C-alpha cells in the first residue's frame, strides 16, 4: 500500500482527529493500525515573524527546567556588515535580562577550510586562538568571516546542556558550515562551558558588528 503523507493537503503528522474521532496508538483506520510517531525534539520558539535586519536574535523565555537539552538550529544567518563574527552570550537568573555580561565562558574553537578555485588553493585545519574564550563575559565567537554578499551565510546547530542546573557549569557545543566572505567553505567546531552555577534563562545571538538576517529555531529534547 502507498505511504500517505497528506490528506486534503494536511500533513498526516498534523492530523489529530478523523471525522471527530481522536486517534490513538493501536486504533485502526480502514482496518489499518494507526501508529503515532512523536519527535523527541519539541519546537519552543523561533524568530520566523521577523528575520531581516535584526540587531540580535534573543530567546528570553522558554529556557528553564522543562528540558535537559536545548538545541538551536541556525538557518542562513547573513551579516549586514562584511567580514564579521557571529557570537552569543547568556544571562543567568540572578542577572538583568538585558546585560549579557554576567556569566564567564571558556571555550575551544577550531575550523577546517577550503578556498573556492577562484580564490586560490588554500585549505587546512587549525585551532583559532583569536576566537576561543577564557572566562570571557563578552560575545563568544561561533563563526567568523561572515559575509554580507547575497549568497553568503552560515548554518549550523548548537546544543546547550541543563541550563537550569543550580549545581553544574553549563556545557555547550556548536558546529557551523559557512560560505565565507572570501569565497571559501568553513566547517567550524566550537564548544565550552558557561562557568556559572546559577540557572541560565536568556541567550542572545548577534554579530560583532552590524545587523543580521536569518532564522534561529529553539527546540527542547524530551525528558521522558
Amino acid at each position, binding site marked *: 500500500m502507498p505511504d500517505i503523507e497528506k490528506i486534503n493537503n494536511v500533513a498526516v503528522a498534523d492530523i489529530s482527529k478523523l471525522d471527530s474521532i481522536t486517534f490513538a496508538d493501536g486504533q485502526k483506520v480502514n482496518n489499518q493500525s494507526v501508529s503515532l510517531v512523536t519527535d523527541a525534539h519539541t519546537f519552543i520558539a523561533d524568530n520566523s515573524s521577523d528575520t531581516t535586519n535584526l540587531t540580535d536574535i534573543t530567546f528570553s523565555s522558554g529556557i528553564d527546567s522543562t528540558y*535537559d537539552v536545548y538545541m538551536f538550529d541556525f538557518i542562513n544567518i547573513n551579516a549586514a556588515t562584511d567580514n564579521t563574527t557571529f557570537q552569543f552570550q547568556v544571562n543567568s537568573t540572578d542577572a538583568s535580562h538585558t546585560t549579557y555580561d554576567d556569566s564567564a565562558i571558556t571555550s575551544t*574553537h577550531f575550523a577546517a577550510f577550503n578556498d573556492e578555485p577562484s580564490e586560490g588553493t588554500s585549505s587546512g585545519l587549525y585551532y583559532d586562538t583569536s576566537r576561543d574564550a577564557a572566562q570571557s563575559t563578552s560575545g563568544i565567537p561561533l563563526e567568523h568571516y561572515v559575509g554580507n554578499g547575497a549568497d553568503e551565510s552560515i548554518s549550523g546547530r548548537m546544543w546547550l546542556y541543563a541550563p537550569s542546573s543550580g549545581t553544574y557549569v553549563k556545557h555547550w*557545543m556548536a558546529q557551523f558550515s559557512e560560505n565565507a566572505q572570501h569565497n571559501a567553505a568553513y566547517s567550524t567546531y566550537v564548544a565550552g562551558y558557561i562557568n556559572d552555577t546559577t540557572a541560565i534563562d536568556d541567550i542572545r545571538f548577534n554579530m560583532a558588528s552590524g545587523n543580521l538576517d536569518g532564522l534561529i529555531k529553539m527546540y527542547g529534547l524530551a525528558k521522558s
Partner: protein
Amino acid sequence: MALTLISTDTSDGSDATMGFTSGIDSTYDAYEFHFINMHPENENAQFSFQVNCATGNTTGFNNEITSTAFNTYHGASKTADGPKIEDDKDQANGTAYQSILSRRTGAETKESVSGILRLYAPSSTVYVKHFMSQGQGYHFEDYSLTMYVAGYINATEAVDEIDFKFDNGEIQGGVIKMFGVS
C-alpha cells in the same frame, strides 16, 4: 530526522556503570545517546563505553573496537591547543572500554561532562558498527576540553547492549537518554 525517546537512565549517585540492556534492536537504523552532566566520583576520570552482542557472540562488554580520537582545549590558565590526536584514547581492535566525550573530567561539585554518541545500525549482521561522538568536559585542572571520537565495533553480530562508566570510581551524577533516529 526525528528522534524518539526510548529510555532514560538516571544516576542514583553511586553507579559503577550505567547503560541499556534493552531497546537496541532493528527498530531504528541509528541510535543517539545524550549525556547530561555525567559527574565522576574521582578527579581525572575518563568516561567510556563498550557494547555487548548478547544474542550473538556473547563475549560480554569486550568487543574489538578500532577508533580515532582528537581534542582541543583552552582555559584561563591553560594555553589553547589542538586539534590534536589523542593517541592514548584510540584503539586498534582493542577490547577495552572506548574513551568518549572528554578526558580527565573533574570531580568537584560543579564539574562534569556532557555530549552525544551516535551508533549506526547496531542490529546489522553484515556490517561492523560505526559510531561517532562529541563531548565537552570540565577538565579537573579547570579548563574546557572538547573531544571527538569515531570508529567501529569490529563485530558482525547484532549489538544489543551498551554500557558506560568512568575509568576509575563511580558515576555519581548524570542522565543518559537513548533515542532512536527515524
